[in-house]
Structures are given as C-alpha cells and as structure tokens.
C-alpha cells in the first residue's frame, strides 16, 4: 500500500443521491461466503474505489452488482429500483455499464463496430425492422457511427477505428472497453482493475479519461490493486476482506486504518507500515 498517505485524494464531490446500492448482500458458494452481508451506496458523481486483498470478495461483489450472478440474499438497488432478479443484459439499459478485469473486446469486429454494439435501443437490432424500416435503421446507424467515432477519439483510438480489435494491446483494449461502455450513456460504470497489465504511459491516459468522463457527470466504482491510481482518482474508498466491508474513507484514511493493515499484512505490521 506504499504511497497511499502521501498522495492527496481528489476533492470529494458534494454528497449525491445513491446511484447504485447494495443492501445486506450475501453470496455463498456452498459453505463459502464470498460476500457476507455487505451494504454500501455509490453516490451520484463520485469515483468510489473498492480495494482489498486477494480473495476478499471484490470481483464477486462486482459480478453481483453487474447482474452476472444473483445474490443468495439481500438486494441490489440501481437508481432506486431493486434489480436483483433481473438478467444481466438489462442492467446497461438501466444505466449501469461495466468493464472486465481481462478485457473482452470482440476480436474480429472492428473497433468502431465494437463501440456501436453498445448503443441502446437501435431499431436495426430488431430482425424485421431491417426490412420494414430500412431508412430509419440506416439513419440510426450513421448517428451511432458518428458517436462511436467521437468516443474512439476520446480514448485516442480513432486512427484504428476500422481495424479488428484483435490488433490492440492490453492497455488499448481497456480503453476500447471504456469507449464501448460509454456508448450506452451509462449513469455509472463499474471498472474491474483498469490498471492491471497496463504500461505506465497508457495508465496515465486511462486515468485522465476516467477523470474527464467523471467530470461529464458519470459515476464510477472501480476495483483496483494499484493504490497510486486509487488515491489519485477515488473520492472515497471501501475496503473488503474475507467477504465483508471492513472500512470506508478517503484513500489516506483507509491507509492508516489498523483493520486495513491487518487485512493486507496479516496483523504483523504497525499502522505506519501501510504508508
């Protein structure tokens, strides 16, 4: 957790309403409780970090929020609506987008097609509309391509727009995922380890773009092991260990918290070690 207390966190935004909430969420796999009675809110306009040692339950929590798995009990609330029973593909229509720890670009589709895929409510995604409303479909498709190109510009990938996504490096794939999820105009984006496997130069680009998108009003929840990135980006940080939330505060505050230090270092260290 080196460097956490030495770097000033981004200014905390005004307390917003809850965009996404977990209410006493439990998820167990047989006798193993991966997430155990976790409650928190992601407030409108903030960048919230979720950190914790390996096996803490962060990715399971992410999958619960994104709808990839259902909670054993408890509730996920998205923009005031309980969504736990809904299939995953409905989440993005409700304003929740996600990226993956290992990026999942559609390798044989071009970058622009990857991004256009995320546009919601396209008439052309209905089978018969392609024959019955061809002009409407074509007009929407042109508008979607314009928007997709603008988003590729945002993440500095527009020069590769018509290349297949398989040509991208690991960091570029993360940027493509960011552009792709932005296409759906989400209110909140879940980022799963955006810094993992990314070189330092590209990491700066990713941090800049996240900050820029946040300034446009998009809320973020990110899982990250790169504490420098967390401390630079996140207004607030939650810490999970052994399936439970153990601490909440700014990056500097959680870095000093003895429970966090114990979770990361097994209780052998003193508070000062975490800085």
């Amino acid at each position, binding site marked *: 957790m080196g460097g956490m207390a030495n770097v000033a966190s981004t200014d905390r935004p005004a307390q917003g309403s809850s965009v996404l909430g977990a209410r006493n969420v439990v998820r167990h796999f047989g006798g193993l409780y991966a997430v155990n009675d976790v409650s928190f809110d992601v407030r409108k306009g903030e960048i919230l970090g979720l950190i914790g040692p390996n096996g803490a339950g962060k990715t399971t929590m992410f999958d619960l929020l994104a709808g990839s798995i259902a909670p054993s009990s408890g509730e996920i609330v998205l923009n005031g609506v309980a969504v736990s029973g809904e299939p995953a*593909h409905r989440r993005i*229509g409700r304003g929740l987008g996600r990226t993956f720890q290992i990026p999942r670009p*559609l390798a044989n589709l071009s970058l622009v097609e990857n991004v256009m*895929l995320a546009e919601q409510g396209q008439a052309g995604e209905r*089978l018969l509309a392609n*024959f019955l409303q061809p002009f409407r479909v*074509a007009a929407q498709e042109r508008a979607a*391509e314009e928007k997709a190109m603008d988003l590729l510009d945002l993440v500095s990938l*527009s*020069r590769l727009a018509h290349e297949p996504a398989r040509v991208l490096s690991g960091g570029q794939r993360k940027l493509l995922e960011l552009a792709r999820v932005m296409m759906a105009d989400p209110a909140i984006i879940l980022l799963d380890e955006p810094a993992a496997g990314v070189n330092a130069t590209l990491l700066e680009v990713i941090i800049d773009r996240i900050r820029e998108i946040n300034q446009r009003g998009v809320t973020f929840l990110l899982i990250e092991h790169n504490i420098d990135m967390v401390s630079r980006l996140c207004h607030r940080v939650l810490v999970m260990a052994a399936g439970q939330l153990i601490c909440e505060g700014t990056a500097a505050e959680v870095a000093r918290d003895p429970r966090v230090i114990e979770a990361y270092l097994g209780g052998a260290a003193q508070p000062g070690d975490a800085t």
Partner: protein
Amino acid sequence: MDLIGYGAFFLTTALIFAIISLGLNLQWGLTGLFNVGVAGFVAIGAYTSALMTTPDDPARFGGFGLPILIGWAGAMAVAGIAAAVTGFATLRLRSDYLAITTFGVSVVVQLVALNAQKLTGGAFGVGFIPRPFAGLAETPLLFNLSNLAIVAVVTLLAWLALEHLSRSPWGRVLKALREDERAAISLGKSARFYRVQAFAVGGALMGLAGAVQAHFTGFIAPDNYAPMLTFQVWVMLIVGGSGSNLGAVVGSVLVWAIWAGSGALTATLFPPEQQARAASLQIVAIGVMLCVILLFRPNGLFGNLTYRRRFGLKARKPS
C-alpha cells in the same frame, strides 16, 4: 441439348442445397449454433408444403390443394416454429450438447415421417406434389430451365436477405454473441433472444429449401432426409467457408459437383452388382476434398472475407 438440360438439373439441385447451407451459415457461421439436425428441418418444410398443396387423399391427412407459394410460406413458418421451439428448449446447452439434441430432433422427425402413415404416407412417402411449370414437362429442357430460374430467384432472394441481415445491427449482435457471449450480455444483448431468432430464421430457410425440392422432384419419402443430408450440407458450408454467404453458395455447387461427378464415375467404372458398395466412394471423394481444401484454406474458400460496413460513413482520417 441433353447437356444443357442436365446442367440445369444439376444446378437446380445444387442451389437447393445452397439455400440449406445459407440457413446453416446463419446458425453456425454467424451465430455459432451447432445444428446437426439440418435434415429434420428440411423434412418438416418438405412435408408441410406437400400436405398443403397436394390434392385431397383419403389415405392420409390433407392434402389441401393450396397454391405452391402458400405451401412454401407454410413450410417456412412450420419449420421456423419447429426450430424456434427446439432452440428455446436447448439454447442453454453447450454447443456439443446442442449438437446431440438437434441430431435427436432430426432422427425423431425422420421416424415420424416413416411411421405416422396417416400424416406423412409412411415409407411410401407423398407423391403427386404439384410442380411449377408442370405443363412444360413434355419438353424436359424447358422444364429444367424454368425450374432452375425459380430456384435461382429463391436462392438470390435468400442470399440478398441474409447479406442485408449479416451487415445490419442485428447481424452485429449475432457476431458479438458468437465471439464473446458475456461481453455482449454486458452490453445489453439477450443471448437467448437472439439465438432463438437466428435458429428460427435458419430453420425456416431449411424448410423452404425442403419445400422447393419437394415441388421440384414431385415426390418425397423419409429416406430423403437421412443424416447423410446433414453431413452433405455441413461439408458444403465448411468447404465454402463458414461465415460467408457467398461461400455457402459456392461450396454447395462445388461439393454437389464432386458428389454427382463421383456418383457418375462409379456408375461407369463398376459393374451393377458392385454399385451399392461403390456408392461409398462418393463419401470418400467428399472426405478427401474436404481434407485437401482445409489443408490449403483452413477457413474454407471464402471464410477469410470480412464483412464490410454498409450503412456507415467513409473512414475518418486519423485525428
């Protein structure tokens, strides 16, 4: 003249296979659905159209004496619904289990065709199926050319419709689901919804091909819809290049040429008492061709062609 007549007959049969291959290409090439029950959906279309269009027969259900085009539409509808039901029931299955299930459906359809005598005429099949341009049957050349023209038009329409769909946002979703289902779901696409649609449309095309063939030959029987038909269509698609509609059509013509050519060759080279065994050489010929093509073109003849944008703008200059 005989050669032209045979050429027309050959191409008509090959293009009927091409329609089936186009349906399979939508299911497998575009969507990644492993359908090994192709023959079953072809049979459903053939029997549906036959029952709808043949004259009344007291020995079995129907016929209803409807126009041929109504029969074709009915064939597409019934085969499409059968495929949708199959798809809805099985699309949670992994591809290998989906293959086994669709194979099972195909066998069940063939067994029903064989045993439900009151519905299908049983082993004797259904005869007197009305043929387009039946009045021209006295002049075989004209009759064959007329049929070829009809089948060519149907194939062209199917090809154009599928090309349109594969470059549409609908087709983009199918390709996305084939490549990475989880990513596509995270972007708001319902895997099950789209897969059932692709399975149904593919099944409807197979049913249409079955109906077209039934009206071309004028007679159908359960033996026409053995698993060998499924094997032939898969080879056609693999040779042509799965994912490519053009490949599906070219592969069908090429494989049918090898199939018919090897059949004619064995008929010439072997004495009549050896004909039944010699027929196996057709399968060997197809197998060898498949190996050779896959050695030199692992993605088939047209499998590497990528779909180009259709509705889009011209490429933006690098910024």
